[in-house]
Structures are given as C-alpha cells and as structure tokens.
C-alpha cells in the first residue's frame, strides 16, 4: 500500500487544482464566478478579489501537499538510524511566520478597499424596496425617476425584480418575519433581510437578461423554495414594463373570467391585492393580509401574468421550453421576449398563450401547500393565533379553478 | 500564557500563606469598608446633581465603579496578597468580557 502513496497524493493534488477550474460550468445560472454586473465584478476581480484569493488558496494548499508528498517519499523508514533529534530553528520559524503575513497583506489591503467600494450608496439612479417574508420576496418601486424612466405610481410585484440594465439600482432590503437573505450571484453578494432594519445593496446588470438567485438565510420550512430573480431590461422595454404595471384596472369581458373575478373577490382578495379591483357596488376591494397571514403580506396579483415564475419564483408560469428559450436568449432579444411573457411565441390575436404553464398554476390553486410546504394546517395554528404562514388549500372545485385561471390570465 | 510559566519553577515552596506578616487586620478591612461606603454615597449623590453635569457625573460614576471594583478584589478578595495566578485567572475573564462585549456593542453603534 505504501508504494502507491505518492501517486495517490498526486491525484489528490490534481483533484484540488480541479476545484479551481470549477468556476466555468456551462449554464449554471448561479455560478459565482460569472459576474454580470459591476458589483459582482468588484467582488471577483483584482487583488483581494475572489479569483485571486481562490488561486492563492489553491497554490498554498498545493505547496503544502507537494511538500508532504515529497517528505513521505524521501524520509520513509528504510532502516536508517534514529535521526538527529533537531528541536527547531527559530530563524526559519520567524521566516515562515512572516511569509504568510506578507501574502495576507496583499489580500487585506485591497479587501478593505473593496468593502468600502461595495458599501457606497450615493451613486444609485433608482431605488427598489425589497421585502422578504416566508417564503417569497416582494418588490415595491416608490414613485421616482428610475434611471430616466418616471414611475408615477407605486408598483408592487413579487418574485422577479425588473430593473433597467446598466443602471445602478439601490435595494433597500428588509423582512416582515424572520431573517432571509437576498442573493443574485451574478450581480452582487448576499445581503440579509433583517426584520426591523433596512439593509442597502446595490444591483447593476450590464446586459439585459435574467439573473436568478435563492434566499440564502435559513428561514424555516420552505427556505429551499424561496427563490428570486432580477430581470434587467433595456431602457425602452423597462419603460414599457413600467407603463404596463401602471395601467388602470379593467374588469374582464369574457364571461368565464368575469366569474373568476367574483371568485377572486370572495376567495382570494382577503389576502391578495389586485389594484383597481372593485366590488359590484364600486367600492374598492382591499386585501387585508395582516388579518390572515403572520407576515401580513401576500403577493400582489395585479399583473401576475407579466411574471414568468410564481410562489417565490419556484414554479414556472411559462412552460419549460419557453423558459429555456427565455433564459438562453441573447441579451439583444431578451427584453422583448420577456415582455411577451406567457404570450411568447403566440401568434398575434391568439386566444390562449402558448407558453402558459397552466398545469402548475392549476395545481397551485388546487393545493398550494401540496406543492410547497407551508404552515397552513388550519388545525395547527394555535401558536400564531390562527394566522397562516403561506397559502392554504382553499378546497376550490375544478370549475372554480377554471374561472380563476381565466381571470388570472387577464392580469397582464 | 507566558505569565503562567514563571510559577512552574517554584515547585512546592510557594504557597498561599507565604506572607503571614503583611496580613491585613480587622481594622484594615473596616477602613476599606468605610471608604467603599463613602464612594457609594458619592455615587448615589450624582443622582441629584446629574441633571446639570451629565458628563462629569458619568466620569465620576465610572471612576467610582472602577475603584470599588478593584478595592473589593484587592482587599476583600485578597488578591493583593495572593498568588498572581489567581489574579490572572480572573483578569483573563474580566478582560475578555470587557473587550468582547464592548466590540459587540460597537457593532450596534451603541456608543455613537
């Protein structure tokens, strides 16, 4: 066995070097070594950057392993005498203490600079409030001029955050219940969403595209299914998107969808807000999630169909094929495709969107907690005083679901 | 850790009751207690003049606290006469506690 020792160690060394090249997987959307925006690049590049420190770490490990391999080979027991009982060599020791210190100084100084660069917040051209709750993210855009585009009424959306490409966007992150963490690996490092405090984080994407991420602070039962994305659009498309979000509500004309509106008001509106929705007597329908949910919020569904994923961006609103197409679209084509959403690939004037992933949405309405574990067993809510943590199974009939789907399809 | 080393060589000859001669008498203790009582009185009095002299009161209080703390340790708890090793054990604890918790409070911008 001993004879094989050196070869095995060499293999180990190779394996370790292998990790270093690991940063180049194809299509891994959360690869931390593929920055796509200035902040992530700041983290990645230069002395004190991620690449440098990883290579440095690899080299140090490789040297240690190489030395150990050499020793194992060179000094193994071949029947030699008891070796000289050397006790040490202070100069050597001091040298070997100073050397790592010097290496670390080359890392430490640029690191400090980077920390302060990344913390700057005065160069933002747009602000988005990001709020985490179990187990989805809400974004709200205050009234402002966002990178040249006027936002005239507050926009509230969930799952995907739409921003103009090339613009420094300032996120203000917080939470309504436990600690979550907002992370879009290709755009910036994480920042925790801590209830009771506002945490700043800058986002900037060079090119239009979709950048996915995941809640990275353990936040309870469905932490694994709390995802998010940043969608960067070119400036015109972003303007279109904003205009679309701000469009006034109109009741559906289609009979089925109209019944769906009724269903929505009776079943869903206690949690979900749809802006502009009114009762038959013209009074606005206002959701009161705080009386139903621990976090006091449920996704705003006004423009549900402008999104491509739902329920914490875990499930797709568009079919797999369409998602692949969208995610892999070249950046010039991306914005237009995204704006089409579920209507992507549908011929003009089509009745039904080709890309719509109806199965998933139906399943959600049929039994949400079956798709995504949530704390919604009505018999087990004593600790929260009857409030849910997530969307319960509402026991809808298939007919009701048909109506609701028809209605929700209009929310574009 | 280095401070510990010096004790090792002593072997068994060094021990607690090494210096009976300098042992404090009852009178010393009573004196210490009186001083402590006076300081406490001074401290308490800040409660009434604190309105007008906030900073002065703070400084006074901290100084008084430190003096009382140290006096109890040195006299009542005998550290003045006992082995340095005892002091070391305790001071590591106090030192760590002060350092660590002050830094922790600083991250909350407590002193800002």
């Amino acid at each position, binding site marked *: 066995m001993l004879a094989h020792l050196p070869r095995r160690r060499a293999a180990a060394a190779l*394996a370790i070097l292998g990790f270093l090249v690991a940063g180049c997987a194809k299509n891994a959307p959360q690869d931390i070594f593929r920055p796509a925006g200035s902040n992530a690049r700041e983290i990645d590049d230069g002395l004190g950057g991620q690449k440098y420190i990883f290579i440095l770490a690899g080299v140090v490990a490789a040297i240690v392993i190489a030395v150990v391999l050499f020793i194992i080979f060179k000094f193994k027991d071949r029947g030699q*005498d*008891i070796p000289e009982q050397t*006790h040490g060599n202070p100069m050597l020791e001091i040298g070997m203490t100073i050397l790592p210190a010097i290496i670390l100084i080359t890392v430490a100084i640029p690191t400090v600079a980077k920390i302060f660069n990344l913390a700057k917040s005065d160069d933002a051209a747009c602000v988005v409030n990001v709020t985490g709750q179990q187990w989805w993210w809400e974004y709200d855009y205050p009234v402002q001029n966002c990178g040249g585009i006027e936002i005239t009424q507050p926009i509230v959306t969930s799952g995907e955050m739409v921003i103009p490409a090339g613009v420094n966007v300032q996120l203000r992150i917080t939470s309504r219940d436990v600690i979550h963490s907002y992370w879009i690996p290709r755009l910036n490092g994480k920042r925790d969403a801590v209830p009771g405090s506002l945490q700043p984080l800058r986002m900037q994407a060079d090119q239009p595209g979709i950048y996915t991420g995941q809640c990275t602070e353990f936040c309870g039962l469905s932490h694994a299914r709390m995802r998010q994305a940043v969608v960067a659009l070119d400036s015109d498309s972003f303007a279109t998107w904003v205009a679309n979000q701000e469009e006034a509500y109109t009741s559906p004309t289609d009979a089925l969808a109209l019944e769906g509106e009724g269903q929505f008001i009776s079943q869903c509106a206690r949690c979900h807000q749809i802006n502009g929705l009114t009762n038959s007597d013209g009074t606005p329908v206002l959701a009161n999630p705080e009386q139903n949910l621990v976090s006091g919020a449920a996704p705003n569904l006004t423009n549900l169909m402008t999104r491509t994923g739902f329920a914490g961006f875990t499930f797709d609103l568009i079919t797999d094929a369409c998602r692949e197409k969208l995610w892999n679209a070249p950046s010039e084509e991306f914005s237009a495709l995204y704006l089409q959403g579920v209507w992507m690939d549908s011929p003009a004037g089509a009745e039904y969107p080709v890309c719509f992933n109806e199965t998933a949405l139906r399943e959600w309405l049929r039994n949400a907690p079956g798709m995504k574990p949530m704390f919604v067993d009505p018999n087990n809510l004593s600790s929260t005083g009857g409030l849910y943590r997530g969307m319960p199974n509402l026991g809808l009939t298939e007919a009701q679901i048909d109506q609701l789907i028809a209605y929700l399809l209009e929310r574009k | 850790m280095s401070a510990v080393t010096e004790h090792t060589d002593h072997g068994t000859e060094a021990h607690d009751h090494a210096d009976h001669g300098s042992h404090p008498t009852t009178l010393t203790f009573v004196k210490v207690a009186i001083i402590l009582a006076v300081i406490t009185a001074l401290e308490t009095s800040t409660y009434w003049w604190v309105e007008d002299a906030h900073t002065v009161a703070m400084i006074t209080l901290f100084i008084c606290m430190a003096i009382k703390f140290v006096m109890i340790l040195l006299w009542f708890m005998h550290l003045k006469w006992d082995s340095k090793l005892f002091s070391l054990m305790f001071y590591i604890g106090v030192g760590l506690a002060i350092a660590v918790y002050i830094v922790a409070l600083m991250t909350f911008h407590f002193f800002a």
Partner: protein
Amino acid sequence: MAIIERPSAVPTFAGAGANAPAVVTPTQGLGVFKRPVAASGWKSWVFTVDHKKLGIMYGVVSMFFFLVGGVEALLIRLQLAAPDNTVLSAQVYNEMFTMHATTMVFLFVMPMAAAFANYFLPLQIGARDVAFPRINALGFWLFLFGGIFINTSWVLGGAADGGWFMYSPNSSPLFSPGHGVDFWVLGLQITGIASLVGAINLIVTVLNMRAPGMKLMHMPMFTWMVLVVQFLLAFAMPVITVALFLLGFERNFGATFFNVDAGADPLLWQHLFWIFGHPEVYIIILPSFGIISEVLPVFARKPLFGYKFVVFSGAGIGFLGWGVWAHHMFASGLGPVSVAVFSVATMLIAIPTGVKIVNWTLTLWGGKLWFTTAMKFAIGVIVLFTIGGVTGVTHAVAPSDTQQTDTYHIVGHFHFVIVGGAVMGLFAGLYYWWPKMFGKTLNEKLGGWNFWLMFWGISITFGAMHIVGMQGQPRRMVVWPEKLTGEGFFNLHFWNQVATWGAFTIAVGVAFFIVNVVVTARKKERAPLDPWDARTLEWITASPPKEHNFDVIPTVHALDEFFHRKYEEVEHEDGHVKLMKVKTAEEILAEEEARADAHIHLPSPSYWPIVLAFGLPIIAYGVIYNLILSFVGAAIVLLAGFGWALEPSVAEDSDYDPPAGGDSTKELATIG
C-alpha cells in the same frame, strides 16, 4: 477503595498490573448511605470517579453519537443525491441537519476530545487523577443525560428545526412552535455545564497536578492544546449560556429578547452565538492538533520541531479566536467598518495556524517515517486541514464571502477542517493510544482500509461540495431544482451524487473501524508495552495503566521524558556519538514498580455526581411540560449538592496509617 495497598507480588509489566487488588473501605457519606465500593461490575463504572474509566465512558458514548450523527448525515446525502428528491420531507430534513450538526459538534467531537483529555492528561503530566474527580464524573453524566435529553425530542413531537446556529427570530415560538427548539436549548444548557466544569477541572489539573519537574514547557503538546481548549471552553460556554437563557425565556416565559415587534434586535442572538461559536471551532480542532503533535514526532522518530512555536501558536489561535466572530455575519449588514475589521482579523488567524503546519512538516523532514495507521491519519490531517484552512481564508475576504456564505462552499470548508482535521485527528489518537488504553494494538491492515476509505471519502464528499457551492447551490435546502442543474462537467446533479457516494465511502471507512475494534477485542495477543517507541509520560506505566496510574510519581527532567529515559547518546568504538536505546519500556516499568509507593490515596467513588446530573434533565422536562417536575429536579440537585458537600472526596481513612516518619511527599492525597 480509598487506599490501594501495593500488592505484595508486583506483577512485572505488560498490562497485567491493571487490576491490582484494592483494599476497600466502606464509609458513610451522608450518615445514611454507604459509599459505593464496588471494584468491579457495573457499579464500578456508574459510581466511578477514575479519570480513565470516565475517559472510556466518554469515548464510548461519543462514538455512539458519532454513528447517530453519521446516519443523519447519510440521510441528508440521500435526500440530496437527486434533484427534487423525496427521501425526507422538508420538516424532517430541517430537523435532520440541525440535529446532525448539534450531535456531531456537541455530542461527538467535543466529548471525544474530553475522552482523550480525561484519559491522557493526568497520565501525560504524571498525576494520579484529575484535581476534582467527582466533578469529572459529574461532567460525564451531564453530557450523557444532556445528549439523551436532546435526542428524546425525536419521539416527543419532533426535534429542533432551526439550524445549528438557531438564528432568531426563526427560533421564536411563533416561527418554531413545537418543543424541538426547547429541547435543543435546555439540552445544550446541560451539556454546557458539563463543558464548563470539565474545563475548570482540567485547567486546575494541568496547573496544579503536574509531576515534580514537569514545567509547563515540559508538557506534552496534547496537554498544552487541551489546556488552551479548556480556557476557550471556560470563557466561551458562559456566552452561549446567556444566549440560551435569553432564548429559553423568550420561548417559555414570554420575554421578547429577539422579537422585532417589541423593538428587539435579532442580531443580538447572532453576536452571542458566534462569540461562543467561533472559539468553539477552535475548541473542535485544537485537541486534534494536540494529538497529531504527539503522533507525528513519535513516528518520525524526532522531537516536535519548534515546540515553543507550536505552543505559542496554539495559544495565539485561542486568543485570536475571540476577535473574529463576526466573520459569520458578513452578510447581515454590520456596516463596512465592522466588516473590514473582522475581515482582516480573521485573516490573521492563518498565520499561527500556518506556523503549526510548517512545524509539523518540518518535524517529518529528515525523520525516519513509520507509516502506521495513526501516522497516516496524522498526515491526512495535515493535508485535509490545509485544504479546509485555505478555503477558510477565502471566506475571510468579506466581499468574496458574500458570494460564498450559506452555500455549499462553506459546508465544504468546515467539513474539511472538522472531518478532515478534527475527526481524522481523533482517529489518529484512537489508533495511537488504543494499546495504552486496552493493552491491545488495533489491526493495522483494517486500519489501512479505515484510513484510506475515510481519506478519499472525505476528499470526494467535501471536494464535491466545493464544486456545487461554486455553482451557487445554497446550503440547508431540502431540494435543489432540476432546472438549475446546469450542463457539462460541473453540473450539480453529478457532483451532488458524487458527494453522496463519498459520504457512504466515509461510512464504510468508519465501519472498518468498528470491525477493527471487535476483531481486536477478540484477539488474545497483547500489545507490547511500548509498541510505538513513544516519547511521553503516559507510556511509562503499564498498559492499560493501573488504577493509580503510576507506581511512583515520575520525576521529570525534560520534554519527552520517556524518550530520554530510553535513549542515550552512546559513544561508539570509532568515536562517533550515537543515540541508542539503552533501556526498554519493560525495564523502566520494572524499576518503577520496584520502588513503588507503599500507600496511595485515590479518590473514592461517589453516588452524588450521577444523582446530581440526573436532576438536570428532570428540571428541563419540567420547563417543557410541567414546572412541578422542575421543582422535583431542583430538589434532587440540591440534595445531591448537600450530600456531595458533606462527603469527603477521599473516604475516611479508618484503615489508613500514614507511613511513619516516611517521605510524606509520597502521600498523594491532594487529589481533591
């Protein structure tokens, strides 16, 4: 068994002396109970205060918990082997990784280190026992009862599910109803007391119970590292105690320490946890550093290179370890100043740790290396720990850490340092000291399998985790979705599967150890007294050591005392001076036995430690279910406390005659 009379026929060597007949002295403790006196049978274990028996019990129980934690790890890996897998439900998965970590850290690595410390620290410094034998027993029972207590939560409505650092407010009653977290809080509180009293005990032991001539700078490195660890424990445990009390009060008595609605700051928990938690990781690793600092010189046939530097770097690590806790919170919004300070402070730790790595390699350099299993494990530690250590440095760079934190890259880091460093080191210790503890050498061939399977299993499992971490796979996720798998060589699917295979490889490696233990226990052949040609004091006595450790307390003249008694510089005919073995261990032992002390005072067994320890889980159950139970528990504790206080540590010496006019330094009765 207050006094051990030296048996008239002195058994010569090789372990036969282990069961010297004891003179048993039953006396009364509280005026009601007789002291336990059994010298054999289960009572001799349950009421024992002998550091060696306690060490073995610590070892057995922590090994058991290792298997429990390991099976939990295997379940985790099974669940993650494929995307959207359904082996475990989300709730059970969350409980699983929480308990995996809790079990491994608090119920395996820490007590396993305590096992070695208990067994070998007195032997290495030439003492007959620890300073406070009954407190030692108390520590063990608290650990055992605490561990059982936490694990009963599995059948009492589900275990804790908040992750091992139990961040608030997710751990509050609102977000984590059920009793899992309560069990966790109270159970850790109990094992925490065990660690605290154990730490005080061992520190006093090291400082006060050394054999004549054993200066601090003559102490074996294992003893040194254990000393540093005990200081860390002594000062870190109170911090987690505070945190646990605050959380417990919040959960059970309506306080609002981490409730944001009441204005609280959830980061307070994080600070308290990590002020404890970072010293904790050095508590995990330093015992193993100590062990391999023993093993490497022995099998390289050279003294440890740069002894002083290794000592001071160990102390330095312990000291610096207090100033870096917030590197676990780089993403939590501390502000750039704090982040910068903690980032740089963290990098500093690489320096003293590097000193250790350098000194270990230089110890090997120029040696005559003998690749026993223990040696293989020790070299394995150098390699695997370094890999884990340098990834630690990549986390220390805060901007870069905001990409890595809470991904599998972190999971990879800490398993490399913990499993590749601490656990491999503990295995090195098992193979190295087994002949000392049980008089038989573990099978080397099975040991080889054990080592290589673990070594490659660890590299594969946790190496793969680095890869998936760099692909952005976050930790603590019951499922990872198919659509994020990616394509090509580095896809998540493949590497998650690799990690799972690796984990099972480790398991097979561990299974080889268990087989090895069984095989070894059944073989007749006894180990030679000094199978490794070792260097430190524990090898000077019989294997296993006699109940009183040493026939006569050795006087120490140098570092590596035992080596110096065996080897001398001998002048050859040709004028060369050469280091030669001049005495065998057997001869040295025979000498010692010949001039053995006539009367040896040993601490006597006691009922009180186990009784007192038993009261605590009862208090804890009471807090969860019914406070009346708590009062019962408290009464038990109080009564046991009184019994304890009134019971002399050493049974009354009715049959004890001080040696008339004899050398009183031989009365080692100071073992309190």
